[in-house]
């Protein structure tokens, strides 16, 4: 046992956890490019924000890179055909989501030609105006490739408006099992760095800090070589610790400044993007290519050949696994299917779900890894308190939620929870803490929605009552006026009559 390990209990605040990262040998396996599958399934919702609106009809021929769905609303992203072929359906498919609910998707049957439509490359991208860069990023449908899938152009524009000075590039990849960002940096460091420089130009930031966890020495070396000669791009190794790649944590480690609660990194002059996003930005700006493929890590004890695969968006996880060597024993020991990383990824009911823009991993976990076990009563050991990277009290919050005291849970900081899963990972009683928090947040937003709806209904009802009252009043007034006129007229008539009589 090393001395540092012996002294660890005496060191200062130790947020987060140090999970067994399971990254190798998958990270060291050479990148494989998956050939075109027969069919691609493209959900219209692959990003945070409004779903895209399909612009193609069934039977229509599309070319590779052609836009097939338009962005809708302020925060949204268009979707492009990952290959040439025919739209065979616009229908509901199983969403990459644990609920197994369905989601509209455009289904394309590949014709095998796989030729790009007309692209508009830009040989001198650094002469483009910042606004033009973000417009090209927007048109290319790029979203955050780290998993959150927030539309990248919206973030670039926001950063330019907030006049950020620092671009933080997230190469942390703190999720265990995943290595697609690692592979991205090892194999395409030059492209990543060029993308980072383009994003610097788009945001107006003066320097980029690339945070890479120190368990990826090859990526750090490759990125250092690629960034040599570009003083504005600084490679910063950070300690391997989960959740280092979480926005607020990474910003604090790299810049030393805390992002205020309820705020954004832009509030302190920082914007955060992922390394994969940087490379996609380069492809969009320099080559004019929209986002049609991504790197996906295949990992887990049930996977025959763990590694990274470049996959067209819309490819079913089933097809990716089949290409990459299948499951051990045809999936006999498979305990859990996960899209994304084990800490924050989504469990899916079967493999017939497509890879989307935010899919960083396909994990086939056996029973040992998934570690699903009966939960026990809380013994108040406080491990969750030590592990929480946000400084919350998970045990207290879950106790409140269990008693339906949601307001108390909010007072304890429920809304600051980033659902990273550290608390549940260390819990000796195996309490599904994240499940409590996700449930409570959903319940709260449902209550908010209900309240808004009630208020709207009340307002409408009030307006109707007011209108009816007004109409009744106006009617009465009009009647009174008419009566008055009539009476006046009658009086006048009587007057003339009387006058006539008297005359």
């Amino acid at each position, binding site marked *: 046992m090393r001395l540092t390990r012996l002294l660890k*209990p005496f060191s200062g605040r130790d947020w987060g956890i140090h999970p067994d990262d399971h990254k190798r040998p998958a990270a060291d396996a050479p990148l494989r490019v998956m050939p075109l599958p027969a069919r691609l399934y493209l959900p219209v919702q692959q990003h945070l924000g409004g779903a895209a609106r399909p612009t193609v009809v069934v039977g229509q021929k599309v070319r590779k890179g052609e836009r097939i769905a338009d962005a809708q609303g302020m925060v949204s992203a268009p979707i492009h055909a990952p290959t040439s072929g025919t739209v065979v359906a616009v229908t509901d498919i199983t969403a990459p989501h644990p609920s197994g609910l369905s989601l509209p998707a455009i289904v394309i049957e590949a014709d095998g030609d796989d030729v790009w439509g007309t692209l508009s490359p830009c040989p001198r991208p650094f002469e483009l105006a910042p606004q033009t860069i973000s417009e090209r990023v927007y048109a290319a449908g790029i979203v955050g490739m780290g998993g959150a899938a927030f539309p990248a152009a919206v973030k670039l524009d926001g950063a330019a408006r907030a006049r950020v000075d620092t671009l933080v590039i997230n190469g942390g990849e703190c999720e265990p099992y995943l290595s697609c960002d690692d592979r991205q940096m090892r194999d395409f460091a030059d492209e990543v760095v060029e993308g980072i420089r383009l994003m610097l130009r788009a945001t107006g930031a003066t320097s980029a800090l690339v945070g890479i966890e120190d368990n990826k020495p090859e990526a750090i070396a490759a990125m250092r070589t690629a960034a040599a000669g570009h003083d504005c791009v600084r490679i910063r190794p950070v300690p391997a610790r989960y959740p280092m790649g979480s926005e*607020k944590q990474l910003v604090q480690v790299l810049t030393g400044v805390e992002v*205020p609660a309820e705020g954004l990194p832009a509030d302190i002059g920082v914007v955060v993007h992922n390394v994969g996003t940087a490379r996609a930005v380069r492809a969009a700006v320099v080559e004019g290519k929209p986002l049609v493929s991504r790197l996906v890590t295949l990992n887990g004890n049930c996977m025959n050949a763990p590694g990274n695969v470049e996959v067209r968006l819309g490819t079913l996880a089933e097809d990716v696994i089949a290409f990459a060597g299948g499951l051990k024993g045809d999936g006999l020991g498979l305990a859990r299917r996960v899209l994304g990383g084990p800490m924050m990824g989504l469990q899916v009911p079967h493999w017939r779900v497509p890879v989307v823009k935010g899919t960083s991993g396909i994990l086939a976990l056996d029973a040992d890894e998934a570690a699903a076990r009966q939960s026990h009563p809380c013994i108040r050991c406080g491990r969750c*308190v030590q592990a929480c990277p946000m400084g919350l009290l998970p045990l207290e919050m879950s106790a409140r939620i269990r008693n339906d005291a949601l307001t108390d849970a909010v007072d304890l900081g429920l809304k600051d929870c980033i659902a990273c899963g550290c608390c549940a990972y260390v819990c000796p009683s195996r309490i599904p803490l994240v499940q409590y928090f996700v*449930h409570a947040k959903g319940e709260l937003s449902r209550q908010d929605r209900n309240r808004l709806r009630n208020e709207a209904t009340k307002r409408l009802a009030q307006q109707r009552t007011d209108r009816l009252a007004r109409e009744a009043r106006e009617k009465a007034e009009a009647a009174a006026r008419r009566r008055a006129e009539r009476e006046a007229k009658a009086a006048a008539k009587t007057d003339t009559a009387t006058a006539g009589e008297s005359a």
Partner: protein
Amino acid sequence: MNPLTQGAATVASPHAHGGNSVARCMLDVQLALTPATLFGFWLYGWPAFILWVGTIAACLFWEAVCLRLQGVGRVRETLFDGSAALTGWLLAMTLPPWAPWWLAVVGGFIAIVIGKQVFGGLGQNVFNPAMVARVALLVSFPLPMTAWISPLPLHALPAPELLDSLRIFLGAPIPDAMTSATWLGHAKTELMRGVDLLQVTGSDTAPPLPWTGLRAGSLGESSAVLLLAGGLYLIVRGVISWHAPLALLAGLALPALIGHSLDPARYLAPSVHLLGGGAMLGAFFIATDYVTSPNTRSGQLVFGFGIGLIAWIIRSWGGYPEGMGFAVLLMNALTPILDRFVKPRVLGRDRRGRPLDLPEREGT
């Protein structure tokens, strides 16, 4: 409403676990107690071993009765998660080593039924069950609870055989020649007689207080050094943090140091306080009880220091020679309040929970 009931399968992330479990924590604590316990068996012979077995068995028995009465489905699993056995073990370490069987059974009842299950079982109790039992026994049965045995290896009389030991456990009278006062007890008696401590420590009748632990007392008293070693093992293993133990020892030693340097005839030396009584057991095994101590490190510092200070006050000015149990219970009662006021700072917020102010930035 309860998210656990929404379908059998847990669907929320994370899909990985660190592998820690309640049973593993309890096992580690029991492992850490083992050297001190074995030393106690050697010191006080078979009766101590039989009492140890009896106390743990009593706790398991009462736990099983409670679980059965509550209609808990997983009786076997809950019974052997290690918590009831650990309570029994800790209680056994605070009893006089030759205590009779009914003390173990009544103690187990108080610890498990009154100390833990009436609050709602594991994790719900406010007070440390073993300390509740010890204090209740001490107040109710002061005589058998202070019948200490001088260490057998130092004795002229032969150690009792297994059968004799069983007889002692079943209530046979203990020969007077075997008994001895604990150091703290002796000092208290002499002080009350008006003899000052300088004379007590200088006299030949005083029981020795060697750091090796060859002296009268409970299992958790004589083997202070082995308990310290066990505590350090738990800290290195990450089962407990150093905060509460260190604060407790500091809370005991600091006032002792001040008092002793001002008036050595009236106040015992810090070393006596640290090695005597239940200081080490309390610091590393009682004050670190997950359920009844604060959740935060800073809360644990206050908690530990409070126990140490109160224990010193009781030892120095109270009617009892040892106050660790009372001190623990008093601070247990304060734990919910400590947890309410001592909270970690949320990232991006100040101590009061308001979002941090935006820093001044150029150009905005």
